[in-house]
């Protein structure tokens, strides 16, 4: 007999951490996502009584996979004729032995191959809209219930349920293959996966205070996904880079806003409350790739964020190093947003006049004219040069473009300070 509270918490933990592993192991048997989801859900339900009676297993994921797969095999045997008409997931036949003869793999839990990558790549297939990719990844890879997915994206539950159903239907009807892409396609396909994880994090990160909790929890799910990948794809620097970027950004979560929910600038944040362990972990993740010059966009962004986070005080920030990192990032990713952030670093390294000069190129580019942050940066630099009237005009412009209440309050306060 095990204590009910302990069992419930073990199940919740296994749900959060092992859902993808258990579902992917079950899809391997069913080749049908809906049936697999149903069987996995039943396995989690069965765990409650069973673990209470027999104790919590040493390897909950293996226990859950075995139960879900056994259940799936029973249903498949019983409904063989019915299932013959179902469109099954398209897989590489030699790797997934479930052909027309319905041979059921007789694997012990320890030999079940880790199929989470197939699941992730299928959910983030470019033939699905990004909205669908985000929803499917949360639902299938993270096991987040549909009502919670709906809350996170601020849509009604029927709308989200329809979006997920439509995406699953497209996977089977259009035969989106359930496989890890070949080497030639991998860079593009991996980019899509990383973009989904990054977007989940960003949606949570920019949620205004008072937003539904599930929206904020997206950050945790994004980190959970980003943590899953490095072990599965150890040769991809960007996989480490993304995890590092999320960790170092998240390390400052507690200090981004003050007690009233107002946005705090980096220089005003209480560095003693930053998560030093997460910052150190991020630094370790990217150090090797930075040394060998293999860092990609995420790795360089992480390096920039880490350079900020590692400085003991704002005035100790190594601005010249940050400018160098921005130069590398801009060479790889000629985006006006990168150029804008680089201009901020230039201003810190070489003074506001140099920053304004760097900013002039971004303004001339024209793509960021409607971006409030451009005007806010310009206002700040002009203010520091005592060009008060121009600074005020730039703040006004930034205010007219910002729509997040926290950011608007911040800009209004800065304008009043001039």
């Amino acid at each position: 007999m095990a204590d009910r509270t302990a069992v419930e918490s073990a199940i919740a933990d296994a749900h959060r951490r092992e859902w993808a592993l258990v579902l992917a192991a079950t899809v391997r048997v069913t080749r049908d996502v809906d049936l697999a989801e149903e069987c996995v859900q039943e396995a989690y339900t069965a765990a409650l009584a069973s673990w209470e009676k027999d104790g919590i297993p040493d390897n909950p994921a293996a226990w859950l996979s075995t139960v879900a797969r056994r259940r799936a095999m029973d249903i498949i045997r019983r409904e063989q004729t019915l299932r013959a008409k179902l469109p099954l997931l398209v897989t590489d036949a030699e790797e997934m032995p479930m052909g027309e003869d319905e041979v059921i793999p007789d694997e012990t839990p320890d030999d079940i191959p880790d199929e989470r990558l197939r699941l992730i790549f299928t959910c983030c297939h470019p033939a699905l809209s990004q909205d669908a990719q985000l929803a499917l990844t949360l639902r299938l890879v993270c096991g987040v219930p549909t009502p919670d997915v709906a809350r996170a994206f601020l849509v009604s539950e029927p709308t989200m349920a329809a979006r997920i159903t439509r995406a699953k239907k497209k996977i089977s009807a259009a035969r989106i293959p359930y496989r890890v892409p070949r080497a030639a396609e991998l860079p593009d396909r991996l980019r899509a996966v990383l973009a989904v994880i990054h977007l989940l994090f960003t949606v949570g990160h920019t949620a205004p205070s008072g937003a539904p909790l599930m929206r904020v929890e997206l950050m945790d799910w994004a980190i959970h996904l980003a943590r899953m990948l490095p072990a599965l794809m150890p040769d991809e620097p960007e996989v480490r880079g993304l995890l590092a970027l999320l960790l170092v950004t998240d390390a400052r979560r507690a200090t981004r806003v003050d007690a009233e929910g107002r946005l705090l600038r980096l220089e005003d944040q209480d560095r003693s409350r930053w998560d030093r362990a997460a910052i150190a972990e991020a630094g370790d993740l990217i150090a090797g790739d930075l040394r060998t010059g293999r860092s990609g966009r995420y790795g360089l962004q992480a390096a920039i964020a880490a350079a900020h986070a590692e400085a003991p005080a704002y005035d100790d920030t190594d601005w010249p190093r940050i400018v160098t990192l921005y130069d590398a990032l801009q060479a790889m990713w000629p985006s006006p947003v990168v150029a804008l952030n680089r201009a901020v670093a230039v201003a810190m390294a070489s003074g506001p006049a140099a920053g304004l000069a760097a900013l002039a190129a971004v303004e001339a580019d024209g793509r960021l004219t409607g971006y409030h942050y451009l005007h806010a940066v310009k206002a700040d630099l002009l203010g520091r040069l005592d060009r008060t009237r121009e600074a005020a005009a730039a703040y006004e412009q930034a205010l007219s473009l910002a729509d997040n209440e926290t950011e608007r309050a911040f800009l209004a306060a800065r304008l009043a300070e001039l």
Partner: protein
Amino acid sequence: MAEYAILIYTPASADPAEITPEDRARLERGARAEADTGAMLAAFELQAASTATSIRGDALTDGPFIEAKEVIAGFCVIEAPDLDAALEIARGNPALALGAGIEVRPVFGGFVAGRSTG
């Protein structure tokens, strides 16, 4: 294996009769190469959209069914093991290089009589 329709879209004003001989040669070379892969089950190029007649209920109208900037200029049906393979074949379509757009759509059902056209 599954079947996919490859729907080729061009600007509504495009007319296959006005394709230059060089472009026509490119299209034909490309079409032959696609046919040689063995994936192609059927392929058709249509007359200009201005020659179309549409039926909606009892009414006949002159022109394509939907007034749009781009209309279907042709289509083919291919056989492929999965969507990734179908997209790869579609990307090789010679019309793409001439500025056409392509929609790849799984076939639900259909049949082709054993005779050739044109």
